[in-house]
């Protein structure tokens, strides 16, 4: 099989697209953990497990970060459409 025909194989394309998506999701989880760990566990002292309060904070942190992204994306799209 030549490189050209491999690249246009629909099965392979689907496989690569799925892997790339998995990759992006894992990268985003790394990124979010990094941010939310700092927001939610700073004053954690020497406890041996995550407290209930810290767990809720982490869950809220993920949700609010994504809300923040949506807000900014919508606002930016609006600005572009208004040609500002």
């Amino acid at each position, binding site marked *: 099989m030549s490189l050209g025909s491999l690249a246009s194989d629909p099965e392979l394309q689907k496989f690569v697209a799925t892997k790339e998506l998995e990759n992006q999701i894992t990268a985003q989880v790394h990124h979010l953990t990094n*941010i939310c760990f700092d927001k939610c566990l700073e004053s954690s002292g020497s406890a041996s497990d995550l407290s209930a309060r810290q767990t809720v904070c982490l869950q809220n942190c993920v949700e*609010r970060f994504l809300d923040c992204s949506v807000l900014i994306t919508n606002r*930016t799209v609006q600005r572009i459409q208004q040609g500002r």
Partner: protein
Amino acid sequence: TVQQQLAIQHAQELLQKLSDKCFKACVQKPGSTLSSSEQKCISQCSDRYMEAWNVVSRSYADRIKREQNRH
């Protein structure tokens, strides 16, 4: 096209940077929703960041042109 792909990639990078910077600056303790003051802070933060991006972009382009004329 390659041009479009680059533009999309840079737009994504800009949106990611904006989210990081404005989330860190505006959301101190993440609650069960974004409060209206957090939303206002995020909107202003992202507007100012975009304006700053434009100023920096122009200044950088000016500098490159000046350096090229010197040689």
